[in-house]
């Protein structure tokens, strides 16, 4: 569970948590507003309930006029609870939307129209015209100075600045944005804190990241996802068959009354009540709330998906491509051991290594210093006092080191040092080379140390695998998801780390092209691939992957290519995304099963109540021993309405997800929601009936 901690380490000040009083009140108001027929018509199941509510209300009015088919109070009670059923459904949707709306409002406040300094050409010194940010178009260049809001999404083309992105990410620490490289993307609505930037605008008004985010959390852009559509079709068909089964009960009942010569035909009120109880109102009422809540969970995980379809696809992913660094291993390697060359004292090697690393402020360098101190109690020297000259790492030599007196200590990759030695007329001893190979085979990185032309030995730098990551991968495997590690390391190192971390496969010495090819190969087997990336050269792979999470710190190109953006820029988030996708589907499936399983108990409540006047023997089916026919029907209707309220938290939170194989997961969910769905209403209806009797309402 380690990774969860890292994922939630950032403070989500922007995210609205829990249900405030205001949120609940707004949802109640919304629940009534949603009674508009046009709103109801979108959901076939609830529309039937709507028509039934209107019908029973009319029957009640008729009863008030003295022509009632049943006692006025009974019709009123049924009608009232049918309206409640609708309101509860609306409430569920409203409360799911409510949180999104609150977030959207917060976001919208950062979308203020600002005055932008539009540049005639992409240079700080170009001619400036002042225009409203809403008039900026793709390709325009703007200058943003310290203290100003960035007027739109774009790419930094000149300058470097610290930017406060808390409005988007909720992260209060400022980040650096600079031209070139992978930190060039800026988002409209964020504020430049220091220095200045020249930004090329990359989005038109209304299409910006902020706009998309607002639309997403508001649910305005929410279209039904493919599985939701398929489920709606199934629910509509079920509703239709129950509608017909109930409607035809009237003629059956009339015939039976004639055939038996006793009793009364079933009343419209009872038929309507039966119908509403039978159609899958529970899932019908909560379906859209589940979808909205799924998106909401993504947002709370600080992931912005461009569509619900992408969230759903996340649940289907077969293969996860994970970058080694940052996802599987901590970003930094650590020195683990010193391997001296033949004839060299280990302590001498440690000392030289420490000296060469004193000025090296990288975590790797620091770890060498620390290791030397731990192993041999070597104190840190002061470079100034030693009159040492630090030689920084350069791309040409790919070495760093220190010149001090006669000593010319260098450290670097094995091949770089070998080239350095050969150029100087020396050579790398075979024993040392073997030691380096051994280190690589163990998944560590060898760092060679030389003094002048004399090889001193090798430092073993180890990758540090994140805690708990191995267990996560085992879970993924149980869920049927294959994990592939992507790394620039050589195959030997990659294999060792892959084995230690427990990933299923790896791609070593990865180039953007190799990555893209890997994705294509996997997709050719009709598997779905998820990946995350940040750099511009990740863009083609992100565009190709089925679920592509772009890091918010990444380039604009990467963000455009992906279908989700992780505001925390945490590559481990991919796993969480997959789980949220699955959880959304499972919640729908579980509540559908529950809803349909409920019908069995309702039959046992209503059928004897409806027909016992014709065939008294049918009272034998009243296994719950409900007090009267009317209390039985009313109890079923009330249960049917209340169960929606009871399940709202589940719909919003999602069914507890466990990383299990499909068979085990199905068995578990069938037991809980299938058998539970059969049993719960028996208890619930009986309790409500007892309560009605107690309150003398029966």
């Amino acid at each position, binding site marked *: 569970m380690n990774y969860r901690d890292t994922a939630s380490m950032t403070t989500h000040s922007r995210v609205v948590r829990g249900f405030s009083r205001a949120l609940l009140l707004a949802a109640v108001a919304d629940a009534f507003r949603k009674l508009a027929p046009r709103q109801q018509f979108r959901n076939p199941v609830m529309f039937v309930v709507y028509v039934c509510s209107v019908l029973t209300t009319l029957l009640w009015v008729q009863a008030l006029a003295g022509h009632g088919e049943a006692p006025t109070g009974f019709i009123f009670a049924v009608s009232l609870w049918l309206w409640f059923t609708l309101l509860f459904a609306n409430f569920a949707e409203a409360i799911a939307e409510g949180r999104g709306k609150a977030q959207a409002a917060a976001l919208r406040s950062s979308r203020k129209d600002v005055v932008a300094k539009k540049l005639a050409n992409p240079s700080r010194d170009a001619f400036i015209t002042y225009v409203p940010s809403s008039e900026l178009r793709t390709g325009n260049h703007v200058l943003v100075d310290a203290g100003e809001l960035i007027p739109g999404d774009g790419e930094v083309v000149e300058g470097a600045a610290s930017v406060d992105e808390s409005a988007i990410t909720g992260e209060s620490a400022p980040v650096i944005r600079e031209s070139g490289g992978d930190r060039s993307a800026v988002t409209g609505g964020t504020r430049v804190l220091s220095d200045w930037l020249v930004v090329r605008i990359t989005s038109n008004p209304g299409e910006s990241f902020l706009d998309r985010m607002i639309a997403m959390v508001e649910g305005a852009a929410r279209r039904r996802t493919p*599985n939701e559509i398929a489920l709606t079709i199934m629910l509509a068909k079920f509703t239709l*068959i129950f509608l017909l089964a109930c409607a035809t009960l009237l003629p059956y009942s009339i015939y039976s009354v004639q055939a038996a010569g006793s009793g009364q035909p079933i009343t419209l009120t009872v038929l309507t009540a039966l119908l509403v109880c039978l159609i899958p109102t529970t899932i019908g009422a909560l379906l859209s709330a589940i979808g909205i809540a799924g998106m909401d969970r993504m947002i709370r995980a600080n992931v912005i998906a461009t569509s619900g379809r992408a969230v759903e696809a996340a649940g289907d992913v077969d293969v996860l491509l994970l970058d080694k660094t940052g996802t599987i291993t901590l970003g930094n390697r650590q020195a683990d051991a010193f391997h001296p060359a033949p004839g060299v004292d280990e302590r001498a090697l440690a000392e030289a290594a420490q000296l060469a690393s004193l000025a090296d402020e990288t975590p790797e360098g620091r770890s060498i210093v620390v290791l030397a101190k731990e192993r041999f109690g070597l104190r840190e020297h002061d470079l100034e006092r030693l009159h040492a000259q630090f030689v920084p790492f350069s791309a040409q030599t790919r070495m760093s080191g220190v010149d001090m007196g006669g000593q010319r200590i260098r450290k670097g990759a094995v091949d770089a040092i070998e080239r350095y030695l050969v150029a100087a007329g020396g050579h790398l001893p075979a024993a040392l080379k073997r030691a380096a190979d051994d280190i690589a085979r163990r998944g560590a990185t060898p760092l060679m140390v030389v003094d002048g032309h004399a090889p001193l030995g090798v430092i073993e730098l180890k990758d540090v695998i994140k805690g708990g990551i191995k267990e996560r991968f085992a879970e993924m495997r149980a869920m049927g998801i294959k994990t592939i590690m992507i790394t620039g390391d050589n195959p030997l190192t990659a294999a060792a780390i892959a084995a230690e971390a427990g990933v299923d496969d790896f791609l070593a010495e990865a180039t953007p092209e190799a990555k893209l090819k890997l994705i294509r190969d996997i997709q050719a087997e009709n598997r779905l691939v998820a990946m995350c990336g940040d750099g511009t050269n990740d863009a083609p792979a992100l565009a190709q992957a089925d679920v592509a999470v772009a890091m918010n710190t990444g380039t604009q190109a990467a963000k455009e290519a992906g279908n989700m953006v992780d505001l925390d820029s945490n590559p481990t988030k991919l796993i969480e995304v997959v789980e949220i996708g699955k959880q959304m589907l499972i919640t729908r499936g579980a509540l559908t099963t529950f809803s349909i399983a409920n019908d069995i108990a309702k039959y046992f409540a209503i059928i004897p109540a409806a027909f016992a006047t014709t065939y008294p023997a049918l009272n034998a089916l009243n296994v719950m021993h409900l007090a009267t026919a009317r209390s039985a029907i009313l109890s079923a209707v009330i249960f049917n309405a209340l169960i929606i309220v009871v399940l709202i938290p589940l719909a919003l939170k999602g069914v507890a997800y466990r990383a299990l*194989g499909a068979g085990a997961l199905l068995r578990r969910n069938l037991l809980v929601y299938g058998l539970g769905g059969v049993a719960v209403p028996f208890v619930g209806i009986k309790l409500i009936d007892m309560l009605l009797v107690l309150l003398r309402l029966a």
Partner: protein
Amino acid sequence: MNANDYLQLALYLVALLLLAKPLGDYMALVFADAPNRVTRLGARVERGIYRACGIAADEDMGWKRYALAMLCFNMLGLLAVYALQRLQPWLPLNPQHMAAVSPDSAVNTAISFATNTNWQGYGGESTMSYLTQMLGLGVQNFLSAATGIAILMAVIRGFVRHSAKGLGNFWVDLVRSTLYVLLPLSLLLSIVLVSQGVVQNLRPFAEVPVVQASSYTEAVKDEAGKPRMAAAGHEVTHAVPVATQTLPMGPAASQIAIKQLGTNGGGFFNVNSAHPYENPTPLSDFLEVLAILLIPAGLCLTFGRMVGDRRQGWALLAAMLVIFVPLLLACTAAEQAGNPALHGLAVDQHASALQAGGNMEGKEVRFGIVGSARWAVATSAASNGSVNSMHDSYTPLGGLVPMWLIQLGEVIFGGVGSGLYGMLAFAVVAVFIAGLMVGRTPEYLGKKIEAYEMKMASLTVLLPCVLVVIGTAIAVMAPAGVAGVANPGAHGFSEVLYALSSASNNNGSAFAGLSANTPFWNVLLGVCMFLARFPLAIAMLALAGSLAAKRHVPATAGTLPTHTPLFVTLLACVVVVVGALTFLPALALGPIADYLGSMR
């Protein structure tokens, strides 16, 4: 139930499974795309047929083209049966000089046989000429069954093929079903049946003297055919002496073999396989009832072979058995318990070494309770609809079993071909629900189940339900419908409900007290039979077409396995729940009220 009852039921199931496996394997070869040792046997005959008909056998038909060919061929067949019935007085092979069948009855019968329902509004030995039986009814027994198998093959190919447009060739599937499967099996069975005493000749009915002459009273009719009334107000009657018995004859065995094998069920004689000439011995009974489920069970295994995973076939078969076996036991037990209404009378209903006991009304002594109940359950599980006892006289629970089995959509074995493709529609629905519950877009056999598949599958599952409930409502509201009801009270409602269930699921059996050979019933049931067969078949072909075009998704640990006991249970539950939820209210007013009433 005694030990022999269990033994007879067990023997039946064992024989069924033992024979289904080789037959399933054989059929997988018959319908394989590539030529093999089986299809090479009849290649010449096949080629001759295709050439004579101007058919390109290698044309790979898309689902629309496949459906069109199927419809065109079946509509022509339907017309042919209608014409034969209407024209039979002027055609040969009519030794009993049967008159032309009335238009409404002829339409009903034509639809009935073309849809593999074989509901019989008529009595065979008193209505149909030998020619009509052979060229009309007998031929449709073959062709409607072959059509069902052909459609199933197209549906299976939908699962097997990927990124493909075609589902195979209807003509090839039709010809192969007939030539390789139905004809050889029928030939074999009919000869065995003849050895048991099933008649097979083209002679006129035989007139024999009776051993004990008797007489019966009959109302005297006037010239207008109305009963003449005596002055006292009651009918004038006279005694008619009976010195002879008319024994029906005809080419029965050949037709009975195919009506059992092809899940047709249309008997040669009125009482179907209760007739001693149609089902003379316990052995003939065993073979005939075995033939009911043989091909449907075999096709499950054919399916497994064709999709390349035999376990998938066994799983479907297991799901069927999970529902079939308990209902078989329930029906047998209910009938064996006898009729409570006779408890107060001096009647011995107990089983003993000397008698089967139980509820013997409408049953034959040679079959007893277990042979009768076994048949009733098999014939309603499959959409066969032949009977060897009268379901109308079953105890309320005993009669509830076949009625409900029909209402489950004829997917527990079901019709040849149609039963399995119906079950596949249920499997798609089950996979969908289960798929959601494991958190993946549902897949079945590597094909993603999406909105379009759900549309077609739920249409297939629910259309018969719709036909049943609406048809029953129409029947009980119409005076002409109620007029046909024979029994009083809730049982009368059961008769109507059974008739509509039977027609709307292409079964064909009946609570036969219902007088359904009237224009009202002929038309109502005709419409139901038609709509239950062809729109459903087209929906399944559309589903198959969509599946065939999809890519194949490889299975992972996250994919729901569809061959496990868990899935079998789930599938059986979905079938039962849909059937129970749809029909429980109606059943409450019929057999359940009937049963609970008889208990008081």
